[in-house]
């Protein structure tokens, strides 16, 4: 049982590795204002009420790596209480990547669905 749930967890993690980048890019492309991590996490939580697909803590390293690859840019702004917040914004490269990634996602979805039906 524990063996099985560990396998399931690993499967979920591997799936998330790609999809979280896509979801984050898409969320930030729709947002007019730059967003910070907590805000994004809250938004994702609201849109997936049934089960938590990914832990919020895993979003931050993904945001960071998207920024390192030039798809996002960020700035730090001090907050009145607590540590400063890092705001993320999508770049032009990010928008271009998102268009391509969405296409790949559509193809993948079609491919997986078609094969799961048998």
């Amino acid at each position, binding site marked *: 049982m524990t063996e099985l749930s560990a396998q399931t967890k690993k499967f979920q993690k591997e799936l998330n590795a790609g999809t979280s980048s896509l979801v984050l890019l898409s969320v930030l492309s729709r947002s007019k204002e730059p967003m910070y991590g907590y805000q994004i996490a809250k938004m994702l939580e609201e849109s997936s009420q049934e089960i938590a697909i990914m832990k919020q803590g895993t979003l*931050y390293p993904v945001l960071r*790596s998207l920024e390192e690859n030039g798809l996002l840019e960020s700035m730090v702004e001090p907050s009145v209480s607590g540590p400063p917040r890092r705001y993320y914004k999508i770049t032009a490269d990010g928008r271009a990547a998102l268009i391509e990634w969405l296409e790949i996602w559509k193809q993948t979805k079609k491919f997986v669905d078609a094969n799961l039906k048998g």
Partner: protein
Amino acid sequence: MFNTIEEYLEELKSEMQESDIALIQDALADAREHLSMALEAAREKTPDVNEADALKSIVEEYGTPEETASAYQEIERRTSPFLKQTVRPSSFWGRVFGVYIDPRTWGSLLFMFITFVTGIIYFTWAVTGLSLSVSFLILIIGIPFMILFLLSVQGLALLEGRLVEALLGVRMPRRPLFAQPGLKWLDRLKALVTDKHTWLSLIYLVLQMPLAVLYFSLLVTLIAFSLGVMTAPFAQLIWNLPIITFGAERVFLPYWVLILLAIGGFLTLTLTMHLARGIGWLHGRYAKALLVTD
């Protein structure tokens, strides 16, 4: 499970023990930002909520320290500093002359020349700031001034870290360090003054100038010397200029010496490149030891 955010951060730190300390610093900054905001939101909803109880559900959503640590390590494996990925030629000659196409060599060279400028700026800033801070201590503006100065030292240390990572290919922190929120002026000063990181950064900034002078003179001398020796034969062959003169006596060297000179100059230049890359490597380790907290 966790009574305070600090406890969570401690646990996260120990989960990441094996990781690069710069990555740990980033992970801690992100976690601190998220957890304190979530805690604040929880307090707004129910003002008399216990911190431990609130943290329990927050951590459930954020992930345990173990899960968070593995998420960072996973991503880090995919994005290592750009300059780290160098071709490793296998043959001996490939390794000797491969130094010219190794991006780390050029990065190190550039870093040493830039250091000549930044070193002077850091030194001036550090010495002026420190002496003003100490002498202002008897005045009312002493403490705020010293806090601002010590914060600027941490800022400069972060900036220098970015430079080191970009040019020397050593992973350095990408997020600033944060002091605990809600501290009084005096407590904040105490935290800054008792932080080993502040003083190590200050020492680094001051030492950058002598090091910069050393690097700069060493490299300029060696590069000028090797280029000079390398091109001297052309002066004799093309413009008929003597390489050596004693008073009025002009010495023209035989052809085989000219060829040896050119080869010798090229070898010295190659050695200089190796030296530059070596110094860059050493400086990266040294910067990491002084600028990154563990």
